[in-house]
Every structure is written in structure tokens, then in C-alpha cells.
């Protein structure tokens, strides 16, 4: 009798871990497919401030991203335009299959390219609340997933929609060190598999950052690719926040691979 009850519970749990027949991993695989735009470039803006304070810092930059030949990993290139003290600085992020990303920073003051060490990649990207690893997109295989259930989507823009709630845990120490997160919970729209909200837990297991994605629009109808044009992230400990806005987005406009090279990083107009 007892064995039967245990078996029934196990079956129920297994079923509940699959929403509409999808597991946590399958949902996140679909998420990666939905947001993997082959090529896109934009003129972007990064605004950082602290809740309760009027002081904000704004950086403007151009942003290029292109999926590599393996169809999974991206190359990302950023060139800063303002303010003056960061003008012409550049950041090249090359995602590798090994999971160890190469992050190179160009400093025009010294005309030098510097490497951002893996452990440092969990640090602040451009003085914002985003880390370098937040900017380099996460990949499905780097995490283990647990489907927590489904609920109404938690952001105003998507309030009328249903979301999956998926918990992700780094698959190895390398990913954990690089990201600085021990786990994260994402709310994924059921209609297009785009994340609308995510919560990140630091190495002490404390809730650390909260991300909200908005202005989610399809940018490649042919391939059904979506992009969140605005990302808002807040550090719950320091109350510091950053808003990243992608403007003038151009998709699949033919970005040459030479953009994502060290030579280009050092080439300043």
C-alpha cells in the first residue's frame, strides 16, 4: 500500500516538472532559440543610478552581436561613445565552447588591449549592475534546470500572459565562478519563451539581483526571433540599478566577422 502511494507521488512530481509536456531544460532550450538572433547591431544606452538618488551615469555605445559558426555561441563587440572618459573604449566578448569566455578590453588611453580574467567576469560591466557574464548570453548546457511551476507573468508589460517559472543551477564550478551566481529563477513567457523576469542568488545563497525585460518585440519574423529592447536590473543589496536600452536595432544586416577581432578592437576612428 505504502509503496503504491510513494510511486503515485513520484509520478505526480514527474508530471508537475513538465509543463505542457516540457521540462525546465526544454523550456530554456526554446528560450535560447527564441532570443538567438543571427546578427544584430544597435545604438545602445546604459543608465546607472541608485534608488533614492538623482545622480545617474549614462553611457552610449554601439553594440554588435553575431552567432558563431557553431550556431550556439555568440561574439559580442561594444564600442563606447560617451562620456568622454570612456570614448573609444571597446569590449570584445568571445564565447567559447569550453564555457570559458574570452573578454578583451581596449583602453585608448594606453592604446592597449587587456584581458578580463574569468573570475573577474562576474564583476561589473562598464560600471553597471550588469556583469560581463550577464552580457555574454547564458547557454542551456551550462546549467541544470528545475521547473518550479507556472504562474501569471510578473511584469506589467506581460501581466496578461502566463509564464513558466524555471530554476537554473550552474552545472559546474567554472560557470559558478564566472557568473558569481549559485542559482537563478527565470519567468519565461509561455507564448514566445522569452524571459520577462529573473532573480539571481549570489555565492552566499542570498537573493542578489533582479532583472526585468520589457519591450519584447519580434525582430526576425522569418526565423521567429525576439529581442527585449529594454533590460532593467537592480542590485537588491546596494539598491543600485541599471537600464540597458537597445535603439536603432538592425537585424541580420550582414555584420562581417572582422568586427569581432582584436585588430578591430584596437582600431579607433
Amino acid at each position, binding site marked *: 500500500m505504502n509503496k503504491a502511494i510513494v510511486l503515485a507521488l513520484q509520478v505526480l512530481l514527474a508530471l508537475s516538472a513538465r509543463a505542457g509536456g516540457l521540462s525546465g531544460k526544454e523550456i530554456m532550450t526554446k528560450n535560447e532559440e527564441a532570443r538567438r538572433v543571427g546578427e544584430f547591431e544597435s545604438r545602445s544606452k546604459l543608465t546607472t543610478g541608485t534608488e533614492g538618488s538623482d545622480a545617474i*551615469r549614462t*553611457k552610449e555605445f554601439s553594440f554588435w552581436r553575431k552567432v558563431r559558426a557553431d550556431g550556439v555561441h555568440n561574439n559580442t563587440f561594444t564600442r*563606447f561613445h560617451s*562620456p568622454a*572618459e*570612456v570614448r573609444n*573604449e571597446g569590449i570584445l566578448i568571445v564565447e567559447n565552447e569550453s564555457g570559458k569566455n574570452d573578454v578583451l*578590453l581596449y*583602453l*585608448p*588611453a*594606453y592604446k*592597449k588591449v*587587456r*584581458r*578580463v*580574467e*574569468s*573570475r*573577474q567576469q562576474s*564583476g*561589473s560591466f*562598464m*560600471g553597471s549592475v550588469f556583469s560581463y557574464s550577464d552580457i555574454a548570453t547564458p547557454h542551456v548546457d551550462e546549467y541544470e534546470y528545475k521547473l518550479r511551476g507556472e504562474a501569471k507573468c510578473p511584469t506589467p508589460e506581460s501581466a496578461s500572459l502566463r509564464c513558466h517559472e524555471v530554476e537554473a543551477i550552474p552545472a559546474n564550478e567554472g560557470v559558478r565562478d564566472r557568473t558569481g551566481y549559485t542559482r537563478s529563477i527565470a519567468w519565461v513567457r509561455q507564448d514566445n519563451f522569452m524571459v520577462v523576469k529573473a532573480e539571481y542568488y549570489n555565492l552566499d545563497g542570498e537573493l542578489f539581483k533582479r532583472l526585468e525585460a520589457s519591450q519584447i518585440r519580434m525582430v526576425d519574423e522569418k526565423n521567429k526571433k525576439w529581442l527585449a529592447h529594454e533590460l532593467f536590473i537592480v542590485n537588491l*543589496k*546596494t539598491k*543600485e540599478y541599471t537600464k540597458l536600452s537597445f535603439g536603432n536595432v538592425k537585424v541580420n544586416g550582414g555584420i562581417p566577422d572582422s568586427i569581432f577581432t582584436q585588430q578591430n578592437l584596437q582600431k579607433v576612428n
Partner: protein
Amino acid sequence: MSFSNLFRFIGLRHIRMRPARTILTTLGVAFGISLYVAIAIINHSTRNSMKESIDAVAGKAKISVSAGVAGFEEAKFEIIRAIEGVESAVPLVEARAFFEGATESTDGLQIMGVDLLQEASVRTYKATDQRIIEDPLSFLNQPDSIILTKALAAKRNLAIDSKIRLSTADGVREFTVRGLLEPEGAARAYGGTLAILDIDAARVNFGKEGKLDRVDIVPAQGVAVEALEKRLRDTLGPGYAVERPETQSAQIDKLLDSYQLILTFFSTLALLVGLFLVMNSISIAVAERKREIGTLRALGATRVSMVVLFVTEVFVIGFLGSALGCVLGKLLSHRLSHQVATSVAAQFQTRVEISRLEFTPSQIVFTLVAGTLAAVLAALFPALKAAKVHPLESMKRHAETAGEAEEARSRALIVLGFALLAFTTVSMIQQWGTVWVGFDYLTKGSSVLGAALFGPFIVFLLLRGFGALTKPLPLPILRISQENLMRSRRRTTANVMALMVGLYLVMLISSVRSSFHDTLTEWLDRVFVADIMVGSNGRFINADVQPVREEIVQELLQIPGIRPIGEGHGAASRIVPIHFQGVKLAVKAIDHYAEFYEYRNIPLVSGDRVAVSKAFFESKEPAMLATGSFLTLAKKKVGETVALETPKGLVSFKILGEVTDYASPNGVIYLHRPVYANLWNDHLVTVFVLSLIPGHSFDDVKAAIDRGPGKKWNLVTISSREFKDQMQSAIDRSFAYTKAIEWIALLVGLLGLLNTLLISVMERTREIGMLRAIGSTRLQVSRMIFNEAVLQGFFGSIVAIVLGAYVGKLFVEYALTSSLGWVIDYHFPKAAIASTILTGVLVAGIAGFFPARKAAQLEITEALDYE
């Protein structure tokens, strides 16, 4: 009577009834202990601070790679990083910077140029705010960005966004504080007197473009540190130091051992003087209380209880003195720490920042136990003497006459004193201390004890001579004083010993100080022939200045009044430390301007100065001149070759001559600057040496430099006279802490003498009463006692001068070389003669004044009735 009653009714009564003696003896112990404690605190804290800096900078690194002050090529970093077994490697550029207008090393700070994009894998930092820096992109791209420790910022009243002006290789630059660090992780290094710059900013500002000073390495998991060390050495080849932090700590221990032994020796001397005071005090108390001891013995007190009674009295005094000594010592350590740190820095050519003075509970307990025990031990001999007092003998009046046994003992002590001085002489000459450190302690201890035991014998000889000389003179009171001293041998010996040990110490330290001072002054007068020296902020004297670019010389040579000297690239010197066989040496890389001065600035020990110097500067092969200490270390002779590790590999240098130089006790090497600059890839300059065209004044030329290149490059111009003055004041500063030792030794000596003189007046109460009864006036009695004190002070100081100078000579000529490496000539401290005699007479006069007054105030009847 039980022991507790014995102590309550007898011991404590004596402590209470003779407050002056109790206080004097307690103070004597306290002062002696205080110096010992202060030096122990400073020694411990110096060692800890230096090790803490090593650990803080190393962080998680298990291995560090460096190549001396000049650093190595940046390209090597990728080679190191790629070596199998390296998990993380982070680069570091180090520099010294000075606040604008600094003339002292204390106005300097250590610059750590780090790659903030890689640091996390090795070093940790904790910001005062949430993040170390607000905006890494802005920080990294602005060469004026600087991070300070919170302590340094508070000291200089700085906050985030404050501007500071620091001298750099390119003159004064303004930096903006963009981060503050809590005293954790790397920010604990150098006592917090450090600033963090981005590595490229450090390179650009401090003339280290394309270079690294050090790479810190964390081995991959499972990789043996030894194996990785070997791989690094094999890959990099000679010229690179591949070390572990613990090896560096062990080197610090080795470096400091000898130096701190000398400090401990001096402080132990002061403690010995204090213990001497205890011994004297109890000796005299035993003599004074002979009748009481006899009575107690007759009433049934055992010999053991007599010993315990005196020992317990001393235990109380010793404990109180030690406790007070701990407090005074802690206060004194604050006063002396900077002076000792300066002295250690000069000795080891390294920056010493004592972060905090630690006096741990275990140290306090140890001091209390050891201080009390030492006082008890000092009292043990007179206490044992008390136990031997026979009840019958003690009942006799005036039983205190030196018997034959006492005479024999006195002679034996003189012989022992002589033997100890003889041992000191042989041990120092033969340098037995280098064979076994125990000999070092024994030798230093013997030198003091020998002088203390043998000194009074010479004083008696001198007193006898003085008596013969003054016999025909109409000075009856002086003669009576002299005869009294001769007659009361025990008392006189005790007084002379109390005073002499302090003066002996003063003379010993003066010998060392004057030898350094005079040797260096003579050397400077001989070799320093330039009119002007130009450098950046800092201290010229120990080359602790901000190095500047060599091109500056061309601008200097445009100044009217400056005579062009040198061979095109100017008249510059670069002075840097390098490692040779694990020891730090000084390299002086000089331009060929020496020809202008007929090579007088090349202090060749022997041979044709001009010929050897020309050969040195014109040699096609790498050549060097070296000091004797280097030749001894390298086991080489003039004419042979020696291989030096350079960033370009192992290079053989021909030794063309031996020179005298005092930049480092371990050895100094002279190299031709172009040769050095090429091999070490270091084109910076420590100091420019210039000459005046006849008819031009220094002041005019200095003003012109200040207005022109001085302002542009933040240069400091000094005359040769100023340089020599700086040198002399640096030597004085190096020895400044010894003044405290001298003062305390003299203070303890004064207390000892005051104590014994007061007691001797008490002992002689009946004698004084009789003198008064047969017609001596109060003034005559008072003069007699005062004369006795002054005579003891005068002759005691003469003997202290002779013995102090003698042992000082041995110390300078042998001990300084064997333990610290310094080879200096002995110079008799002439200036100290008059001051030592004056101090001796003054101290004795002060100590004699109160007993003389007390003696004069005695009533005849009371005095005659005194037991």
C-alpha cells in the same frame, strides 16, 4: 614564627619603612624592563609588519617571479601564464612615490600597479563603499585614477574625488582618488601606506613602460609547488627570482636576526643595570639588617626562611617594577618605533612600515615572570649571604669589617672580570659568534660583566694615585673622602659598578656612532667632488628618491653656469638594489663624468686610480668595481670574473678594482651606466651630478633650475654641502634610538648610585656622629660625602671611557662586520670624553647631594646611638 607572619611583620615593614629605597629599586627595575619591553615590542612588530606585507601582497599566490628593481619585460608575462601548471598569474608593477615637496621618506608611499581585470584570482581588496571603484571603465582609462587605503586617506584628510599631487618619473602629476580600501587583503601591506594604480597607469607615470616588476602565481589544483617553481626557473633562466612567500619571510627572519640581536643586547644592558641595582640594594640591606637577621635566627628562624624572606621582598619589588616597566615600555615603543624602523630601512635598503605595535598578553605575562624572576635571581646571592649570618657574629657591634675571605672573594671577582674581558677580546677577534650564536650572547654578556667586575679595580688604582698626588695639597676634606673610599672597598665597588655600567654603555654606543659618522664623513669628503646634485622628491642620502628620466640632463645642461661634463648622455647615477646569492646588494651605475673629476669620485682601495677607472669606463667587456664585502661574498679577487643575473641572462663581469662604499653592508658594485641600462633595460636616473662653471654661484644656478626644468620635472637641487649635512643627519637619525637607551641606562645608574649612597650614609651614621663629635662642622661632613660621590663619578667615568672605548673598538672592527656586514674604521669618540666625564660627575653629584644633606642634618647624639 610562620613565614607569612615573618613576611608580614618583617619583610613588608621594611618595604614600607624605607619608601625611598623601595621606590628607587622599583623604578630601577621598571626603567630597565621598559627599554627591554620597548625593544622587544618593536622587534616583534617590525618582523610581523614585514612578513604581513609579504603575505598581503602575495595574497593567494604560492610563487612570485621578480627580477629586481629594474623589473623585466612585459612580454614575459604571457610566457609565464602559459607554463603548464599555472592556474592564475597576475602582474604587478611596484614603485615609490612621494607627495609633492617631500624631503623625507616618511612622505612617500608604495605604489602597487595592478591589473584590476585579473587581480581577483590572487589578491583581495575590500572597499569602504560597495565597490572598490565606481566605474571600472572610467577608472581604467584615466591614468590619474588612484585608490588609497582608508587609513592613508584619513591621515591626509582625503576622500573620494580628492586630488593629490605625487612626484612621478615625469615630474609632479595630479591624481584623483577614485576608491578607498579597508585594511584587509592587500591593503594591509606596507602598514597601509600604499596606493593602487592600474598597471598601465603605474607604468606610464613611473617610467616602467613595457615592464613588470613581479608576477604572482597560483598553481593549478594538484600541481606541486616545487615542480612548478622548477618549471618556471627552467623556462625563465637566470636573472629571475622565483620565490615562495614563505621563503621571503624566512629571508626577513635571517636579515633581522643579527640586527635585532644588537638591539636586544643594548636593551638587555639597561636591564642588567637595573638588576645590578636590585643586587646592590639587597646586599646593602643584608649588611644593614645583620643584627635583625641574627635576632631572628636566635629566635628560631631557619636559614631557608631568611633566604625566602629577602627573596619575597624582592619578588614584590620585582613584580611591581616589571608591571610598571610593561606600561613604560609600551609608551617608549611608540616613541622609538619610527627611529628603529628608519634604522632598519637604512640597514637593509628596504621600506619598513610598522603597521601596529603589538604587545600580546603572552608577552606581558612573559615579561612579568621573567622580570620578577631576574630580580629574584639578582637578589639570591645577597639573600644566601643573609642565611649564612651567625646569630652570635651578628650581635657584635661594627661587625662589618672586610675579613680575609671577603678580600679573597674581591680579588677573585677582579680576576674573573679580567678573564671575561679577555674572553670578549678573543671571541670578537676570532668571530666565534658566527660559529655558534650562543657565543655571540656570551661575548656580549661577558663584555658587560667583565667591565663591571674589573672596572672598580682600576678605579681603586686611580684613587690611590689621586691620593698620592693630592697628599701635599691643603685639601683635608678631599683627602678624607679619598681615604674613606679606599677603606670601604665593598661600598665603593658597589657605587662604582652602579654608575659605571651605564656610562660604559654610553661610551660603547658612542664608539659605534662616531665610527660610522667619521668613516662616512671622511669618505664623502674624499669622493664627493661634485658641486650640485639634482634629483626628485625623497631622501637623497639613501637613494630613496623618485627616479626620473635620463633625458632631463639635456635641459639641465642648458642652464647658465652648469659646466657640461660626461660623455654625451650626461652625468647621472642610478642606484638600485639587486640580489646576488640571496643577498641584497647595491648597484651604482655611473656615467663617465668621473673623468672630469680626475676620477676622484672612484674610491679605489689600491692601485692606480686613474688607470683602473679609465679601464673600467672604457672596457669593451662588462666590467665592475666592487667593495671588499662583495668580493668576500662572491669569493672572488680583483682580476677575476663574476657572473651576475640580469634580465638578459647570466652576464660575466670582470672585476677591475676594489672600492670603498657604504651604500650597503652586503656589498656595492659600480657599473658603467650604459652597460647597466642595456642589461637591466633601466634608463631611469636616481640623481644627476653637476659641476659649476667658475664664477657662477650655486644659489643662482639653483634658482635657474627651480624656475626651469625643476618646475617642469619636480626636481630638487642641493649643494654638496647640503648633501653632506643630510648624510650626517641621516647617521644621527639612524642612531637616534640609541639615545633613549643611553638615557635609560644613565637614569638607572643614577637611581642605583643614589640608592647605594643613601644606604652608605645610613651605614656610616655612627662614623658621621663621631666626626661631628670631634669637631667637624655640618658643612665639612656634607662636603665629605659629596666629594666621595663626585670622586666616584669622576674616576668611574674615566674607567667607563677606557673600557667602553676598548670594547667599542672590538665591536666596530669585528662584531659589526661579522653580524651586519659593515666594514668601517674605528674612530675614538673624542667628543664623548668630556660629555661622559661631565655626565658621570653630574649624575654622581646629583646622587650625592641628597645623602650629603642627610648626613649634615644628623644630630650628634642620635648618630652616636645609631645601631
